[in-house]
Structure formats: structure tokens, C-alpha cells
């Protein structure tokens, strides 16, 4: 590679992940630039139809190693039908290789605008991808209750590739892939597929890249062959069982603690993904639509492997009382500072801003900082003075029905507390307009009614 090409490759890498500071140094993003890619686009995507509520019954996705023989037969029949579609009509978007190409197109093959790895699209995009893939498989065998299995590789008893994907070990098995490095008797390495570090994260922006990194990526690499290559990974049916488990871990993380939530930003929630459905119609679905998979996508996960992993459990909150607010300036007494310093050692801390005053004439995201200089430089979430983001959404495009301004907002500040309380006894907050509308980039002092610091009580 020439020095120019190398620099170009690096620029693509930086540019691709620049939208999300949390992913800046994220391992899999390292491999995710678009240099030299050539994946076909998904096909005719004109006349998109918005996804509508799915009203099938809620069915479980179950561990692949616990499927009954009849369930394995159905799974193999579904993938055989999908492979047959590819053989009979290569343009059919429901065909197996067309399905695999969707992933290729969205892993750099379609350019940086369609890249879903190394950022906060990773989890919602793959959830939606599996949902439509699963509906196509079910439709091909006439079973609306068909659900994908998951490979629960974090379970010490399930470290081998599930038997159905190897038995029989040849092309007669629609779940087989001849490129895998792992043999039927091989276990994943003890270091691979360990989600404990990700599960210990307390907010989505940290959880998502941690999960996408080693736990998800290492299983791809260990399985080897097509699975270890972005472009070809989805050509192995095992990909879908693997990603179903990644999806399950996201589901488990959300379920275990009410403070574990999806991003609240309107930009993330309204982000649209597109897929072909079981009727070959191009459907669009928003991130927010996939967050509650049980209610909206009609599947749940049987079993929860979190019992295997110690995880923080907040059972209540202690309010730090000696905080006074005058003119929207936070004043911390010595007692409050001492309490917060003590919490820094071991406890989760939230800052609650009550009744923030924000412009109500447009939909916008606002980054909040406790340092005016950082706000003016708009250093983003990596800044030690970054507090979080507030979102205002207009109720209608004409502004006739006002705007939805949060009545209060909780920010996880455990990691930023030291910079905040070491700086001064008096704290001002500043917000930066992150919209693309008039006023974009403006820095203003944030007014609010009050602020609380709350320290999590763990069981």
C-alpha cells in the first residue's frame, strides 16, 4: 500500500467512526473501512413502506443446543428453502446469498454511509436484520411461529458450535459451511465470547462498543472462515445464531436494570434501517421500533445467562442533600462533596437536572457541559466536563403544538464526578446546540429549577 493509500485508509477509518466518539478506538471498527469493497446494493429500494406493528404471537428464541429434533428439522428446512431461492433466482431478495449480501453492503461494502459497525447503529441494525431474516425463513416454511435459535457461547457448557450446524458435516446440511476453522470437537478459546466487561457497563454508549468488540468479534474470529471476514460472515448460517446471542445479551442488559436504557436522542431513535420483508417489499424501520423486541418484533429469549455473571444491582438511590441552587448555579457544600468523593470509589452516581429551560422553537439535541471552555470547543462525550445530552422534539413540523422538553433528565456522571467537584464549589452548566438549524453551535448557560445528585445503593 502506498503512503497515499495508507493515509486514505486511515482517513476513512477516522471519518467512519467520527460520528460516535464512543467508538473512536473500538476494535472491530479498526477493520471496518470501505477500501476496496464491492458488495452489491440491496436492489430496488424505491417506494419504501414503513414497518407497521407486528401482531404475531410472541414466541421464544431458544438456545441452538436445546432445540428438539423437529425444531432442527424446521430450521434446516427454512435455510434449505432460502438457499434454493438463491439458486433459482439470484435476484430474489429473500434468497440466502442476497440476505448475506445485505450484511456485506452494510459492513463497508456500500461505503461509509451504510456502515453499521463501530458505532451505535450496530445493535439496532443487526436486531432489525435478524427480524426480517427470521420472518422470511418462517414464511418460506409456512410457519409464523418460527424463531431463530441463539448460540449462547458465554455458557461454559455451550462453547462448541451447536451440533445442528455441523451434523451432518457436509453440503447436505443447509446449516453447514465448509470454510469454518473450528471443528465439531473444538471449543471456543476461554478468552473468546466473554461478555462480563460489557455487561458491567452502565450506559448504552459504553455497553454497545464493549459488546461489539471482543465478545462479539472474538467469536467471529475463532469460528473462522467466512465468519471471520466482514464481507462473507453472513454466508455462514451460524452468523444468525451468533448474532441472535449478541442481541440476547443486549436484551439481558436492558432487562437487568431500569437505568440501562437505549439512547434517548431523537437522532438515534429516529434513525432508519431498510430491509426486504417476506413479501419482497422494501421496509423501513426506526431504531426506536426495535428497542422493545418483545412487544414490537414478537420474540423473547428463553433463559437468561446473566445468572452466570455477577452484575451490579441498584436497589435504590441516596439523595445528596446539601446542594443549593441559586440562579441556576449549583453550590456543593463540603459535606456533599465528601459524600460524592466517597461514592466515586465504588458507587454509581446520577445527576438529575429538573426542569431544564431549553429553546422550544425547534427539534434539537443539546450537549451539556460543566466547563464553558469545553462547551465552546464542543469537545463531545470524551471531554471530562461533558455531562450528557438533552433532546427537544417538536410535536409537529409547523410548531403549532409546541415542543416536548424533558421535565427532568438523569445523567450517569460517575466517571465525570471528579472533574466536576474538584473544579469549584460552584458549578454552572452550559449547553451547545447540536442541531443543523439556525442557532447551531451556539453555547448558552443552562437554566433549570434544581439539580440532584443521587448515589446508587447496591444489593
Amino acid at each position, binding site marked *: *500500500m502506498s503512503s497515499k*493509500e*495508507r493515509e486514505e*485508509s*486511515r482517513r476513512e*477509518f477516522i471519518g467512519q467512526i467520527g460520528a460516535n466518539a464512543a467508538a*473512536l*478506538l*473500538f*476494535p*472491530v*471498527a*479498526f*477493520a*471496518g*473501512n470501505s*477500501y*476496496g*469493497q*464491492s458488495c452489491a446494493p440491496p436492489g430496488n429500494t424505491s417506494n419504501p413502506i414503513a414497518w407497521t406493528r407486528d401482531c404475531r404471537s410472541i414466541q421464544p428464541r431458544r438456545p441452538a443446543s436445546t432445540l428438539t429434533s423437529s425444531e432442527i428439522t424446521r430450521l434446516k428446512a427454512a435455510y434449505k428453502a432460502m438457499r434454493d431461492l438463491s439458486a433459482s433466482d439470484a435476484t430474489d431478495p429473500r434468497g440466502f446469498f442476497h440476505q448475506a449480501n445485505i450484511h456485506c453492503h452494510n*459492513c*463497508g461494502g456500500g461505503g461509509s454511509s451504510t456502515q453499521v459497525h463501530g458505532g451505535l447503529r450496530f445493535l439496532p441494525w443487526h436486531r432489525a436484520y435478524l427480524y426480517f431474516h427470521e420472518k422470511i425463513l418462517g414464511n418460506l416454511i409456512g410457519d409464523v411461529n418460527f424463531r431463530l435459535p441463539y448460540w449462547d457461547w458465554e455458557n461454559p457448557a455451550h462453547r462448541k458450535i451447536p451440533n445442528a450446524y455441523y451434523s451432518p458435516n457436509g453440503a447436505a446440511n443447509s446449516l453447514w459451511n465448509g470454510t*469454518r*476453522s*473450528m*471443528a465439531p470437537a*473444538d471449543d*471456543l*478459546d476461554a*478468552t*473468546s465470547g*466473554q461478555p*462480563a*466487561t460489557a455487561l*458491567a457497563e*452502565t450506559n448504552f454508549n*459504553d455497553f454497545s462498543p*464493549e459488546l461489539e*468488540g*471482543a465478545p*462479539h*468479534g*472474538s467469536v*467471529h*474470529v*475463532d*469460528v*473462522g*472462515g467466512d465468519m*471471520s*471476514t*466482514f*464481507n462473507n460472515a453472513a454466508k455462514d448460517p451460524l452468523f444468525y445464531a451468533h448474532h441472535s446471542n449478541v442481541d440476547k445479551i443486549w436484551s439481558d442488559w436492558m432487562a437487568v436494570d431500569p437505568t440501562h436504557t437505549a439512547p434517548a436522542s431523537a437522532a438515534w431513535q429516529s434513525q432508519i434501517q431498510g430491509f426486504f420483508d417476506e413479501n419482497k417489499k422494501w421496509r423501513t424501520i426506526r431504531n426506536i421500533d426495535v428497542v422493545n423486541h418483545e412487544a414490537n418484533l414478537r420474540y423473547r429469549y428463553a433463559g437468561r445467562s446473566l445468572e452466570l455473571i455477577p452484575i451490579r444491582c441498584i436497589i435504590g438511590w441516596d439523595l445528596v442533600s446539601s446542594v443549593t441552587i441559586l440562579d441556576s448555579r449549583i453550590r456543593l457544600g463540603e459535606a456533599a462533596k465528601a459524600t460524592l468523593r466517597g461514592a*466515586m*470509589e*465504588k458507587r*454509581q452516581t446520577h445527576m438529575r437536572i429538573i426542569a431544564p429551560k431549553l429553546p422550544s422553537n425547534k427539534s434539537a439535541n443539546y450537549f451539556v457541559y460543566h466547563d464553558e471552555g469545553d462547551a465552546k470547543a464542543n469537545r463531545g462525550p470524551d471531554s471530562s466536563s461533558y455531562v450528557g445530552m438533552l433532546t427537544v422534539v417538536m410535536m409537529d413540523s409547523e410548531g403549532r403544538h409546541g415542543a416536548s422538553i424533558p421535565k427532568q433528565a438523569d445523567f450517569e456522571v*460517575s*466517571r465525570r464526578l*471528579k472533574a466536576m467537584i474538584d473544579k469549584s464549589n460552584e458549578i454552572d452548566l452550559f449547553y451547545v446546540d447540536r442541531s443543523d438549524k439556525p442557532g447551531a453551535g451556539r453555547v448558552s448557560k443552562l437554566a433549570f429549577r434544581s439539580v440532584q445528585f443521587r448515589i446508587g445503593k447496591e444489593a
Partner: protein
Amino acid sequence: MISRRMGRAFPAAMLVIAVSLTGKEIDVTADAPRVCVAPQVLRLTLLDIDMPRSQAANIRIYAILDDGTEVYAGLASVLAQDGGSRRTGNLAVTSVESFRKWIAEKKPTGKLPLRLRPFGGASKPLTSLDWKVRAAEWSCR
């Protein structure tokens, strides 16, 4: 000094010593990490990795003690991709809990040698991987 040799300006606090070997394993020496205050996590950043695009790898990271004992610190995963020949970039690895506990207990000071060991499919050691790492540094996130 690695920073001078590489023509880069790094603040003294970030300075790390790196011995980049081309080949299977790479040994890197970084300033020993400080103990991160929970809920911060201890993170290792591998700077300016250069490796083939066509190679997927799980990179296991070990701290090497004076007596040669290895302490497992964490894992970075890189998927392969078609097209092009080389790729460069930084990789961040969050250390595993057992390593964080080890750091908190031993509180190593000075330099801490690290060994980066690449593995491919089915956990086979990549003994002929042509790759480089310029340096490594620890931080709390």
C-alpha cells in the same frame, strides 16, 4: 525515545516505550497503569497497528512479570476484510476484571512489559503474521 524516532510529539505523561517486533508475538513496554477508580475501567490502547486486511485475529494481551509469569490482561478482535493490502489504526481493549484486580493488589510501578499474541480461527497461533504495533498506553475510562 520512541516519540522522537517516530517523529511524533507526545506529552511526557503519555510517553510509552515500545519495542515493535515484526512477526508472531509483539512485545511492548508501557508505563504501568494506575489503579482506576470504579466505575472507571482500565483500558489499553494499542497505537498504530499495521496488519494485513485479509487477516482476522484475536490478539491476547499479557503482562509479563520479572520471573516470566504471564498475567492475562484482555483481548482485542479484528475481523478480516476483502480489498486492499494493509490497514492501520488504533485498538482499545478494556482489561478483564481479573487483571484490574491484579493491578489494584500489586500496584506495579515503572514500566510493565506486555506481550501481544495473535490467534486466528480455531484459536490457532498466527506464527507468521506480518504486523506491527508502534506503542501502547494505559488509561482509565
